[in-house]
């Protein structure tokens, strides 16, 4: 069963203006559940855009994205055939995004002045879930990433590697089945990048589907990478061997 399936996805910006450009051009791709998929390519190749489309952050200009094997609050039961997300209304899309995807950003995007614990819990706040529940989960995640002793310190006191782990913990707070990471190692040295890949390994073992955009050899040459998809100028140049 395919987890995420993209069919003829295109995304254009500034449509109808002189500056119009096509960031993603007619991409079709299946992303397998429980695997590590790497999107490789130079900057401007459309990796990030493709990931925002998959992560329900933006809608494609054309094409279809079908998610299967997930369940949103508004669904009576799990849809066996998958849900076509491109045409869903905003709030349903948001709901899917919150439950299905966890994001790790290049700049980490942590909020300054706010404690580590609260930064990790932030994505759970608007879900209306009982605070005790997600606070417990956050505690477990902080333990797991050995940043528990910093729980109440503001994030700016932490080192780069610790910030990285806080960002990953935050991505995991709503227990998503898919982790999307955009250039996660861009600001890390080799040791920390390797540490990141170790964490990816544990997540993979936990059954998460992982999608990483990167042009860092430590990432795409890693034995953990099940599949490397290469992109250039908005199109897939090599979709790698299916695992």
């Amino acid at each position, binding site marked *: 069963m395919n987890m995420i399936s993209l069919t003829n996805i295109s995304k254009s910006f500034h449509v109808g203006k002189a500056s119009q450009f096509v960031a993603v051009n007619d991409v079709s791709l299946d992303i397998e559940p429980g695997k590590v998929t790497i999107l490789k390519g130079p900057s401007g190749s459309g990796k990030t855009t493709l990931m925002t489309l998959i992560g329900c952050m933006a809608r494609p200009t054309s094409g279809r994205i079908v998610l299967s094997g997930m369940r949103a609050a508004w669904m009576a039961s799990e849809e066996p055939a998958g849900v076509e997300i491109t045409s869903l209304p905003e709030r349903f899309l948001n709901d899917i995004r919150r439950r299905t995807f966890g994001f790790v950003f290049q700049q980490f995007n942590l909020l300054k002045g706010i404690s580590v614990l609260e930064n990790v819990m932030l994505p759970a706040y608007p879900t209306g879930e009982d605070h005790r529940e997600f606070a417990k989960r956050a*505690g*477990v995640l902080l*333990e797991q990433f050995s940043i528990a002793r910093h729980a109440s310190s503001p994030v700016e006191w932490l080192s780069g590697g610790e910030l990285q782990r806080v960002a990953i913990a935050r991505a995991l707070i709503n227990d998503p089945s898919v982790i999307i990471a955009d250039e996660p190692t861009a600001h890390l040295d080799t040791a920390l990048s390797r540490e990141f890949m170790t964490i990816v390994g544990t997540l993979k073992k936990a059954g998460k589907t992982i999608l990483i955009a990167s042009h860092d050899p430590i990432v795409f040459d890693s034995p953990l990478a099940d599949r490397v998809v290469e992109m250039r100028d908005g199109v897939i140049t090599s979709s790698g061997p299916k695992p």
Partner: protein
Amino acid sequence: MIKTHRIRKSTVFLVLTIVNVMAFSLLMLHARSVQGRAGELLASSSRIARELQLTDLCLFTEARYTRHPAMGDVHAAFQDHPIALEHFPSGSLVPAPLPLVR
């Protein structure tokens, strides 16, 4: 295991707000109960006012013309000259009687 469930700030704020609302309500009740007893509290004022046919509160005793604002006329405040500067601070709080200004 770290302690993640301490007393939440939002709880503190909500409790504070409830305390505020309660204090406010208590004060309103206080106002009510004092008003209930207002008759006896104000009885002596009332009696004196009736007996002496008083017309004004004894608020501004600093000058003759501010002592009985209800009895004043338009120029009462300007005893010396219509555009003389106000001598007394309360003069600026007590406008000329409304029906006369018109």
